[in-house]
C-alpha cells in the first residue's frame, strides 16, 4: 500500500484519465441497466407486482393472456380447490380520452378483476375499487402524466362508457400502457360481448395441468408483447459492455505496468517480494475502480432525479451494488491479466545497464 499511494499521488493525470475511463464504462452500464429495468417495469409491473405465483391459461394460448379464453366452468374448478388463492383476470388493451377533449387520447390496459380478490391493487391515494355497480375505478399513477387526477372523468373511446377516478395505485403498467382496474360489472359495460375471462391467477405454484396451460409469472411477463425483445437487446448491450471493458481495462493496465517494468525489476533486485508487487498493482487498480464506481453511482443517482417521467428508469439498491461489485471484479481480473509481465520480470534487468 505504501508504493500504491505514492504512485497514485505522483501520476495524478495518468490515473485520473484511467479512472475516467472506468467511470464512463460503469456509468454507461448502470444507465443501460437502469433503462432496461425501467422498461421492464413499464412493460410488466402490473403483473410482476401481484402476489400471484402462477397463471392458468387456456391450452394452446402460448402464454399470451389475450389469446386465452376461460369459462365459468373452468373458474368453478379452481375456485373450489384454491378458494382465496385464486383470482380471475381479464386483460384488454384499449384507448381512453378525456370527456371534454376527444383529440387527446391515451392508450391504456384494462385489468378486469374481482375487487375482493388478491389482484385488487394497493392504493397510493384515493379510494379502493369495490364490486359495486358504479363508475368509480382505480388507475395507475402513470395516468397522472396525461393530466388525470382523482375525480377526473375518463371515457372509453370505443364504448363511450365514462368512469371516474376514485383512486391511484403506484406506477402499474402493462406493455408500456397505464393500467385501469375495473370490476366485473364495469367490465361488462366496456365489453358487453365478453362472457369469459383470460386467466386464473394463483398464489401457489402449480406445475402443470393436462387441460390448461399453467405458467409461472416470469413466463407470463416474458410473453408480454415487446418485453423479451427489449430486454434481450438491452442486456446484450450490457453483457458486451462487461466483456469489452474487461479487455479494454486489461490492455490499459498492461501498458501502464509495461511502462513500469524497469522499476519493478529494480524493486525486485532491491529485495521486494513479487507478492508485494502483485498486491501493489491490485490495490492500485482496486482503489482506482472503487473511486470510479462510487462517482458513477453518484452521477447515476443525480441523473435519475432529473429523468423525465416519460423515460422509464429504475435502479434498485441491490442492482446498483451488484453492478458495482461485478465491475470491481472485472477490474481486478483485468489487473491480474496485466500482472503476468510483472510476475515474470527478472531482477537481473537492473544490472548491466540494460535499462
Amino acid at each position: 500500500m505504501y508504493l500504491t499511494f505514492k504512485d497514485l499521488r505522483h501520476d495524478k493525470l495518468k490515473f485520473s484519465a484511467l479512472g475516467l475511463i472506468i467511470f464512463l464504462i460503469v456509468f454507461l452500464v448502470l444507465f443501460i441497466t437502469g433503462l432496461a429495468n425501467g422498461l421492464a417495469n413499464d412493460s410488466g409491473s402490473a403483473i410482476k407486482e401481484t402476489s400471484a405465483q402462477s397463471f392458468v391459461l387456456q391450452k394452446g394460448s402460448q402464454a399470451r393472456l389475450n389469446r386465452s379464453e376461460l369459462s365459468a366452468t373452468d373458474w368453478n374448478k379452481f375456485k373450489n380447490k384454491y378458494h382465496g388463492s385464486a383470482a380471475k383476470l381479464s386483460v384488454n388493451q384499449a384507448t381512453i380520452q378525456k370527456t371534454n377533449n376527444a383529440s387527446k387520447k391515451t392508450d391504456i390496459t384494462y385489468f378486469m378483476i374481482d375487487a375482493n380478490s388478491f389482484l385488487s391493487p394497493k392504493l397510493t391515494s384515493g379510494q379502493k375499487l369495490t364490486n359495486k355497480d358504479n363508475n368509480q375505478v382505480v388507475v395507475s399513477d402513470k395516468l397522472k402524466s396525461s393530466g388525470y387526477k382523482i375525480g377526473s372523468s375518463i371515457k372509453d373511446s370505443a364504448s363511450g362508457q365514462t368512469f371516474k377516478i376514485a383512486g391511484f395505485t403506484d406506477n402499474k403498467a402493462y406493455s408500456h400502457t397505464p393500467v385501469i382496474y375495473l370490476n366485473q360489472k364495469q367490465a361488462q359495460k366496456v365489453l358487453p360481448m365478453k362472457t369469459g375471462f383470460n386467466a386464473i391467477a394463483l398464489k401457489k405454484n402449480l406445475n402443470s395441468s393436462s387441460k390448461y396451460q399453467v405458467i409461472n409469472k416470469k413466463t407470463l411477463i416474458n410473453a408480454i408483447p415487446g418485453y423479451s425483445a427489449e430486454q434481450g437487446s438491452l442486456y446484450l448491450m450490457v453483457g458486451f459492455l462487461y466483456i469489452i471493458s474487461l479487455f479494454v481495462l486489461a490492455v490499459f493496465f498492461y501498458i501502464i505496468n509495461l511502462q513500469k517494468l524497469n522499476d519493478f525489476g529494480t524493486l525486485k533486485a532491491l529485495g521486494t517480494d513479487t507478492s508485494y508487487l502483485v498486491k501493489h498493482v491490485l490495490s492500485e487498480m482496486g482503489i482506482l475502480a472503487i473511486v470510479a464506481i462510487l462517482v458513477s453511482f453518484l452521477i447515476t443517482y443525480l441523473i435519475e432525479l432529473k429523468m423525465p417521467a416519460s423515460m422509464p428508469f429504475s435502479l434498485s439498491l441491490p442492482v446498483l451494488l451488484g453492478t458495482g461489485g461485478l465491475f470491481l471484479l472485472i477490474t481486478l481480473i483485468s489487473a491480474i491479466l496485466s500482472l503476468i509481465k510483472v510476475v515474470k520480470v527478472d531482477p537481473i534487468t537492473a544490472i548491466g545497464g540494460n535499462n
Partner: protein
Amino acid sequence: MTNILELNHIIKNYPDGQQVNEVLKDISFHVQRGEFAAIVGPSGAGKSTLLTIMGALLTPSSGTVSLNGQDISKLSKKQQTSVRLNNIGFIFQNSDLIPYLKISEQLQFVQKISQKPAIDANELLTKLGLKHRLNSYPNVLSGGEKQRVAIARAFINQPDLILADEPTASLDSKRGREVVQIIQETVHQENKAAVMVTHDERILDLVDSIWQIEDGQLKKVR
C-alpha cells in the same frame, strides 16, 4: 580479517544454440570487511554476470558463493530475495531510483519492506549532501545527486556487502570520482565490504584491491 564474500570455482554456462557458452571459467574471489574491491575488464568479459552471481540474482552452474559464511549459490528465488534485501546493498549504473518516490521515501521504502531496525534515513541523506533534496522527486536531481541517493539506498539497510555496477558510467569524470570517493569513505567508516565493477581506470586509485577479468577468467592485479 574475515572474508565477507567468497567465490570458489564459479562456472557459469549459457546455452548458445547447439553449443554451450562458458561465460565464467573457474572463478575464485574474496573480499574482506572494510575492503573496497574493483573488478575491471572489457565489455563482454563477464563482469556483469559475475556481479549478478555475487548479488544472489543468478545461480552459478557450479561452484559456491558464500556470504558471511552462508552458501547463497543454491537458494530458492524467495530466499535470494531475502538475502538481497537484508545482506546486500546495490548501486546500479543508472541509479535506478523509483520515479514516484521522493528522495527520503526511496530509503523509507527499503526500510519498510525489511525487518531490520531502521536508522535515520534523512540523517544519512544529509550526510551525503542531499538535505535540500529530501522532498524532491528523482527527475529534478542531477546525475551525481541521483547516484548519491542510490548510495544512501544501498547503505540504509546496513548490509555487509555493497555491490556497485559501473556507478560512474553516466557521470562526468569529476562527479564520477566524487561518487566513488563517497562509496570508499562510507565503506571504510562503516567497515563494510564493497565490490565495484567498472571500466573507468581513473578511479582505481580509490580502491583497495583490483581484479582483472578477461575471457571469463579472473585474476588479482593488486
